[in-house]
């Protein structure tokens, strides 16, 4: 599939960007691991959120980092034993344990494994299965936020933390970053419209905070939730045309 000139460079920029975020993620996952090693569960919950939001900012939407990405961010869905399945590992597994009274000792080996799995993503970042193929950048532009709609705002990937809105906010950061890379290749009016629709979404999300903390969608009053869903839906309709514009058929 031929792409318009400049997408290759944009993808190189994306790899540089995501490798920077992965470095932060590694630091936060190390911190999470130490919290568990010292049985400090409340710090572990805080550091889990930081790590989860780092991962969102990487922009590995729609399992676009293949099996290595799933090891970091996979869900229990599809596993015979669900949340109790030994193959359920990674950030959401830790979320499940941290919000379901599991002990630090239970979770420590999972954190150890996560440290290794994040390192593997960093090592293989430029492989075609992960971020190496520029074609996947053209999809990333809209799929990061499609992921927010499908997995976060639907409640599907909430393993207890109720962090859907925080995650969506981090997804906006990632989308803005990607837009910064491909935007210069496209019509400036389109990019400006998209940016202002994302601003609208950011504003809508602010209303879902209580004492500085985001509510879970189920606990959010309907009018607030509707404004968020509407703003996200609107920006997704706009972003949907980007992949075609970046292709050169």
């Amino acid at each position: 599939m031929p792409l318009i000139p400049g997408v290759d460079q944009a993808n190189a920029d994306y790899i540089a960007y995501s490798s920077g975020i992965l470095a932060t993620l590694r630091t936060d996952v190390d911190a999470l691991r130490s919290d568990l090693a010292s049985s400090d569960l409340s710090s572990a919950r805080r550091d889990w959120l930081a790590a989860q939001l780092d991962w969102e900012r990487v922009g590995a939407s729609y399992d676009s980092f293949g099996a290595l990405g799933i090891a970091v961010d996979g869900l229990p869905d599809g596993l015979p034993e669900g949340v109790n399945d030994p193959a359920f590992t990674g950030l959401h597994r830790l979320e499940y344990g941290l919000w379901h009274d599991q002990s630090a000792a239970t979770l420590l080996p999972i954190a150890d494994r996560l440290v290794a799995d994040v390192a593997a993503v960093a090592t293989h970042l430029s492989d075609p299965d992960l971020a190496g193929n520029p074609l996947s950048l053209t999809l990333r532009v809209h799929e990061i936020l499609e992921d927010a709609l499908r997995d976060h705002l639907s409640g599907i990937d909430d393993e207890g933390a109720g962090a859907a809105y925080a995650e969506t906010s981090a997804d906006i950061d990632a989308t803005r970053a990607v837009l910064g890379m491909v935007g210069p290749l496209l019509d400036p009016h389109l990019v400006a419209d998209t940016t202002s629709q994302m601003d609208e979404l950011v504003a809508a999300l602010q209303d879902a905070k209580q004492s500085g903390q985001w509510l879970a969608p189920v606990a959010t009053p309907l009018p607030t939730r509707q404004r968020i869903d509407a703003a996200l839906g609107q920006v997704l309709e706009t972003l949907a045309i980007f992949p075609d514009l970046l292709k050169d058929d």
Partner: protein
Amino acid sequence: MTMDRRTFLKGAAAGAAGVALSGGIGGLIVVRGEQAPHATPSAKPTSDSYAFHGPNQAGILTPAPAAKQAAACYAAFDVLAANSTELADLLKTITTRSRYLASGVDPSAQDYPSSDTVMGPQFPTDGLTVTVSVGSSLFDDRYGLAGQSPRHLTVMPVFPDDTPDPAWLHGDLLLQLCADHPDAVHHALRDITKRTRGGMPLRWKIEGYASPPRPSGTPRNLMGFKDGTANPTGDEASSLVWVNDPAEPAWAIGGSYQVVRLIRMLVEFWDRVGVKEQENLFGRMRDSGAPLDGSVEADIPNYAVDPTGIYTPLDAHIRLANPRTAETANQRILRRSYNYDLGADLNGNLQAGHIFVCYQQDVERQFAKNQARLAGEPLIDYVQPFGGGYFFVLPGVRDDNDWYGRQLLT
């Protein structure tokens, strides 16, 4: 629960004939076996109807998927009968009501008027078929059926791309009700449940609808693609669907393995994806339904001359589901699916999708092989299987004296 189980069909257990049960009083169900007429009231269809008696149940090949009724309901129940006698009574009641509802009778000429007037005082058959199937849980230790299970009937496993929701899964007994209009489906469900309330509480239910051809050919699913094109038909369909393996328990011959998969479609996302990408996911043209190497819907894809997937991607849905090789020929399934529309999801999206239903002689040899090949298919980004189950369609009711599951329970 325990109490329900004990009080269930108190009368029925005592009643000798127990052919039919009437409405309950104060939670107890009273048998009116004595007064039950033995002959089916004279059939007087006021609309389409499909033969109720036969070696196989209706609602699978009669009418065939290509001519299936426009409205459907899948209602799964848990059985609370205390013992196998009560279970038999329950099945007899379902038989009596189904025979009556599906055959068409003049209400004044029989003893069991319909309990509701949703379809007016003289309800037409409206093309109703009732298809009764049972889940593997019925073959546990409750009814002494442990050794009698169809050989390949299991609890539907969790497949790799599933997002299972326990509220929408499994069941001891499933009713598939299909008719020309939704009110007839609703009416049938109400009529049957009224007479079986103490014995089989509802577990989950979902209504489906079939679209008309748009503009012609096979009807489209809610992703806008013609769905059902490559279904087997005629004798070939019969030879793939009805259980005839002598290794199966004798009672099961003439039955069929039924797989129900409730599959949400992420329709908003789907509508934000380009047509070309959609066509590559399915392996067919969206407008015409033609395979990607053909020009009209009826064209047969030729994968042998396209080994690298130049025309039809190797991971296209139709290519994975049916590679069209000699080895996979007996793995084909009969699909008879419906669309569904529910309410809104938490994220404000439409809750809509596909009640995927398929029939086969051997769920392992057929559906499970298809499903395994489809694991991880690119289409999975746009759909989420969340419910359903594996069921076994009982053999047909032969005549006026026969009832669903008679050979299993006697």
